[in-house]
């Protein structure tokens, strides 16, 4: 994986010292609240409902075991013994104090981590496919381009005060998108043309929040060398003419929608023509240098599958269940991708204790090239496990409550922190997720339901990506009571769609029953081979609306 060079090291330690000085000046009164607030946000420190919250960047969701161990240490030393993995492949600590934060940032800097680009109106931490480098269906490792974009965007002077935050995702998968690329300010899909050259489909103006929009494609194939000039042109046009007068209309999606994708593209390409052949042109040597950082680990030549696997699957039903649901195909014969669910029955989606993080770091060191991935569905991945070691990995996970066999099932709920932690939330989201994972805990039943993405947000800002859930749940406050609005048919993949609201919100006491009725309706009307999403797309929301609001008398 990418290792800091001397410039990265110097920049991050300088930043820690700056922040230490800023905290001291704030505590002495030299810096007012208003002056200090943007400075703390630039270092990932938010003020939430109960305490400060520190968001730490995990570039393209890849961590070394040493880094994960450091996160565990921070959770134990400065927080309440756990951390929360987010829908943007980052990690959050919910209880740090202001006085400890410079020390936390120094501990992070020791392991090449920081909180830069996790807040503020800048280009945020760039995300990528969690199966990067190991997916059977990828063109090349997307993290090469995420890292190039990280180097370009970090402390980019022109883009340090954009109209609003700006999120970029990169996918190189030919099959399924695992990054929600069409719901990003810029979405980048790597292609290879008939001549074997790398290029990018560049999308822009996607996003969720109060105005969900599926990104439009601006250009089908931007050559590799032009990645930065094209992105710079997009962000420059947005920075110059994006709205700054209204917070709710300041994201690039509003600009692209207002101008129309064709006109926006014209402006971008006009700008691009002017800067295309400047220093922004990406030298192929540099691409190769970055590519070398993401070289695959040493793989052994192994039997595929190993001869003992069949008996192991036969012998242990729980292992077989986990293998069936959480293990994905690896490009290297004899290896597998192991998905670690952070969604135990009744648990808090995305939370991991210090002990769990250390256990995963240990397993990664022993069995998976000392590397861990974070997914935007708030799970973890061990990306290089020899199939012969899967049983040992599963046993290690099970010993720490990390072997829930539910990845991409209805109980694998994606969920924002909601009103239990967040100052912006209008309703709680975690308790709803806990009830859903408990209601659908029975694996046979969940398997029968099949792939079903369920996303919950505790307010219109949509951090739980409810618009992109096959079933989406949005918590709202109605006269000081929590109500939950259901959307159906959302999807975050290449064929992205925005969920449709099925009707009036339901009180918290009725929401889980309503979801169960929706699922029952699906089981009743699905055609052979149809996933939940396929059925909703075929029938529309009608049958589900009826199941919720006008159920047949039993």
């Amino acid at each position, binding site marked *: 994986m990418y290792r800091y060079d001397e410039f990265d090291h110097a920049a991050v330690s300088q930043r820690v010292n700056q922040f230490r000085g800023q905290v001291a000046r*704030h*505590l*002495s*009164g030299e810096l007012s*609240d208003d002056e200090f607030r943007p400075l703390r946000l630039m270092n990932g420190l938010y*003020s939430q*409902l*109960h*305490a*400060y919250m520190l968001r730490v960047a995990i570039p393209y969701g890849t961590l070394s075991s040493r880094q994960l161990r450091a996160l565990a240490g921070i959770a134990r030393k400065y927080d*309440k013994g756990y951390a929360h993995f987010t829908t943007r492949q980052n990690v959050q600590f919910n*209880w*740090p*104090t*202001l*006085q400890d934060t410079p020390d936390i940032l120094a501990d992070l800097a020791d392991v090449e981590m920081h909180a830069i680009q996790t807040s503020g109106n800048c280009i945020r931490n760039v995300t990528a496919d969690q199966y990067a480098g190991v997916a059977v269906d990828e063109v090349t490792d997307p993290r090469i381009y995420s890292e190039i974009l990280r180097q370009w965007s970090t402390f980019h002077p022109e883009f340090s005060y954009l109209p609003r935050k700006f999120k970029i995702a990169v996918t190189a998968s030919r099959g399924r998108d695992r990054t929600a690329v069409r719901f990003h300010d810029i979405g980048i899909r790597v292609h290879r043309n008939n001549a074997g050259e790398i290029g990018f489909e560049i999308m822009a103006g996607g996003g969720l929040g109060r105005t969900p929009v599926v990104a439009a494609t601006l250009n089908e194939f931007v050559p590799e060398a032009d990645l930065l000039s094209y992105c710079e042109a997009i962000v420059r046009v947005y920075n110059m003419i994006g709205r700054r007068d209204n917070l709710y209309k300041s994201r690039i999606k509003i600009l692209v929608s207002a101008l129309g994708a064709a006109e926006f593209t014209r402006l971008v390409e006009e700008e691009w023509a002017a800067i295309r052949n400047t220093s922004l042109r990406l030298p192929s040597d540099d691409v190769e240098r970055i590519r070398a950082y993401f070289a695959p680990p040493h793989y052994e030549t192994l039997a595929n599958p190993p001869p003992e696997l069949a008996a192991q699957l036969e012998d242990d039903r729980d292992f077989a269940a986990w293998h069936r649901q959480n293990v994905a195909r690896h490009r290297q014969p004899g290896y597998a991708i192991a998905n670690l669910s952070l969604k135990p029955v009744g648990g*808090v989606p995305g939370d991991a204790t210090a002990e769990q993080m250390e256990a995963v770091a240990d397993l990664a060191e022993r069995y998976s090239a000392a590397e861990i991935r974070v997914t935007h569905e708030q799970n973890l991945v061990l990306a290089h496990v020899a199939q012969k070691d899967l049983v040992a990995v599963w046993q290690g996970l099970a010993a720490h409550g990390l072997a829930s066999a539910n990845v991409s099932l209805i109980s694998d709920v994606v969920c924002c922190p909601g*009103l*239990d*932690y967040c100052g912006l*939330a209008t309703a*709680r989201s*975690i*308790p709803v997720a*806990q009830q859903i994972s408990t209601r659908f805990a029975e694996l046979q039943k969940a398997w029968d339901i099949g792939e079903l993405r369920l996303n919950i947000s505790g307010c219109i800002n949509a951090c739980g990506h409810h618009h992109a859930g096959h079933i989406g749940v949005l918590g709202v*406050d109605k006269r*000081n*009571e*929590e109500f939950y609005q259901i959307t159906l048919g959302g999807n975050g993949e290449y064929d992205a769609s925005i969920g449709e609201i099925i009707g009036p919100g339901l009180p918290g006491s009725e929401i889980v029953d309503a979801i169960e009725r929706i699922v029952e309706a699906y089981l009743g009307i699905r055609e052979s081979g149809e996933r939940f999403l396929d059925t909703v797309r075929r029938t529309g929301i009608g049958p589900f609306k009826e199941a919720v609001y006008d159920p047949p008398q039993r």
Partner: protein
Amino acid sequence: MPQVLTAYGLLTGQVLWLTEDSAWSPRIRDARVSDSDADMAEMEAAGKAAHAAHEVFDIYRVDIAAEPGPPRPIKMRERIRALGPTIHPGFGPQAEEHGAD
């Protein structure tokens, strides 16, 4: 409507409530309850002084139920702030009642 005054501790980020003796407590049961404009004016002056002394930030009033017993915020958001996350009985001021933190 009776009100209490809340803020966040600058160093700790902790939720705090202004008390009878113009100090700050993490327990809402220690909060001074105002039932008049004059009362609230006094409390807000104490809040401003604490802000000027760099003890607290984000000071605001919270409506509480007009009932006997410890102050109970009307809004769910403020009830959760006063007690801690509903999903972690061991975290926040509610922990004292559950005997853990």
